[in-house]
């Protein structure tokens, strides 16, 4: 397939991208409850990159008078109202399916989900340690949660090619984004950029998604966020917190870690906390029968 054709296929898919199979049952349980609690709604959206992206898209595209891009889900729920957010989540959950969590695909969606949560949680922990303004810490979580969003269309619309990309990575010990480029002429960061721009989520999140494998080329104004997400991603890959196909990620120079005031000892120290957050999320996602 030509690169342009691939991008068109992906572009068309972005509108129809459903919630992750891991979260769908809980989304349905929460949204079908006539007395949906704001806290539950907040939590379920926080656990799904597609839902999070769509809610952020709505709040930021509708409210023209916003002085800054909104990255607080609490604020979005208050401004848009529970009913609107709930119905948006429901409509996203019933859009179709990305396959059951257990389905064989290049990327297992449960592993992908765990990886996305891990990167979000880690990025927020690093931001908290650096005393980043609490108002924008959420931006670090969202940046991490969404950083690999570009893999969803690749994994689902170009499934055969994606299986090949991941097996090339495993065989040749190359970073996944390079294998993707070799096989499909695009990588997940490029596709992610396309999605984030389509959702009009703002330069900060777009940069985090676009440059998380390419810090050397980054000269924009959101360096802290971009670097933090890159570190959180590398940590989650190395410690195998979830699985996103990248068994041989590129190392980051020690200066990059230093720039964010962390080292591998610190990261090792937070492993249990990150795992605990993922477990907590999994418990939340269990549906009452």
């Amino acid at each position, binding site marked *: 397939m030509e690169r342009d054709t691939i991008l068109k296929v992906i572009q068309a898919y972005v509108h129809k991208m459903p919630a992750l199979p891991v979260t769908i049952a809980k989304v349905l349980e929460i949204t079908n409850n006539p007395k949906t609690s704001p806290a539950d709604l907040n939590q379920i959206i926080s656990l799904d990159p597609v839902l999070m992206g769509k809610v952020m898209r709505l709040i930021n595209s509708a409210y*023209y008078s916003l002085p800054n891009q909104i990255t607080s889900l*609490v604020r979005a729920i208050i*401004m848009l109202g529970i009913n609107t957010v709930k119905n948006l989540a429901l409509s996203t959950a019933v859009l179709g399916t990305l396959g059951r969590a257990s389905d064989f695909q290049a990327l297992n969606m449960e592993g992908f989900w765990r990886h996305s949560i891990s990167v979000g949680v880690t990025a927020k922990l690093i931001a908290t340690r650096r005393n980043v303004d609490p108002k924008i810490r959420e931006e670090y979580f969202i940046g991490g949660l969404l950083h690999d969003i570009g893999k969803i269309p690749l994994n689902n619309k170009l499934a055969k090619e994606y299986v090949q990309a991941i097996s090339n990575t495993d065989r040749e010990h190359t970073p996944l984004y390079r294998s993707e480029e070799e096989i499909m002429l695009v990588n997940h960061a490029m596709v992610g950029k396309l999605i984030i721009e389509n959702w009009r989520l703002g330069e900060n999140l777009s940069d985090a998604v676009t440059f998380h494998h390419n810090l050397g080329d980054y000269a924009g104004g959101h360096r802290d966020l971009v670097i933090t997400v890159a570190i959180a991603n590398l940590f989650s890959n190395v410690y195998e917190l979830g699985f996103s196909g990248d068994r041989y990620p590129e190392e980051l120079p020690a200066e990059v870690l230093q720039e964010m005031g962390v080292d591998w000892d610190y990261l090792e120290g937070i492993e249990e906390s990150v795992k605990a957050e993922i477990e907590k999320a999994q418990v939340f996602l269990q549906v009452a029968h």
Partner: protein
Amino acid sequence: MKYGGNTSCLELRFGEEDRLVVIDAGTGIRELAGHVMQTDLPKGPIKTELFLTHTHWDHIMGFPFFIPLFIPNTEVKVFGPVSFEDDPLSKIFGDMLRYRYWPVRLEELAANIQYSDLKEGTMDLGGDLWVTTKYLNHPVLVLGYRFEYRGKVFCTAYDTEPFRNLFDVSPDDPSYDAEAVKEGALAAEEENNKVTEFFRGADILIHDTQYTHNEYVNPKSPKLGWGHSSFEHAVNVAHKAGVKKLLLFHHDPDRSDHELDVIESKIRRTVRAKSRVEVMVAREGMTVEA
């Protein structure tokens, strides 16, 4: 009925040319249609701009009964908010005129209808008329309108209730999250302030007052989250924003004329002592000049 039983529809007139702007197409638009046929049609084809506050039934269901739609050369520009759905206003609104609901399909109408999806912003409508929109708080996206014409300001705020911190639960609650409580309080306060500023200095404000304060917070059957305001809230916000005339609007369908009479005189007594806002209970056919 003294106050009327139709659902929302407002007729606005501007300037010597009597420019017609309609807000909402509730059942009241049927009677408006009769009036417009008598007063406007003899002067030439009817041209109007119809602004929808939101797409709940009681605000759109009169549209098929707007007789000028069936008259050639009528021009209607429809403006309104759309939500997260990808369907444009033309589909959301136009779908009421389908075979299963109505004998005349949208495509068969003689009128020329144009649709514009609105979000927050300010728009020049030409002829010195400007409109600014603001999202309000209701279980669907709702726009409040602020029309400005040669120094006069007219605002709508329905259907809406004050923004509130939805995350303010007791610290004992398992869902308690201190950061969310703080952020939620700030967000609600900021949005309420924006709404007050939106009304700032209005000559006329038409505000949702479906409930009394006691009904709104009644612990046995609270109406919080239903998307409608209390009389007391509307009066307070109008006073704060320096509004000149406040019209209490969107009456509870179960409210009797007598109850509204009592509420009006009680509110007027209270307001007279504390504020310059002139308060009136809106009723069908009422004319108010800015």
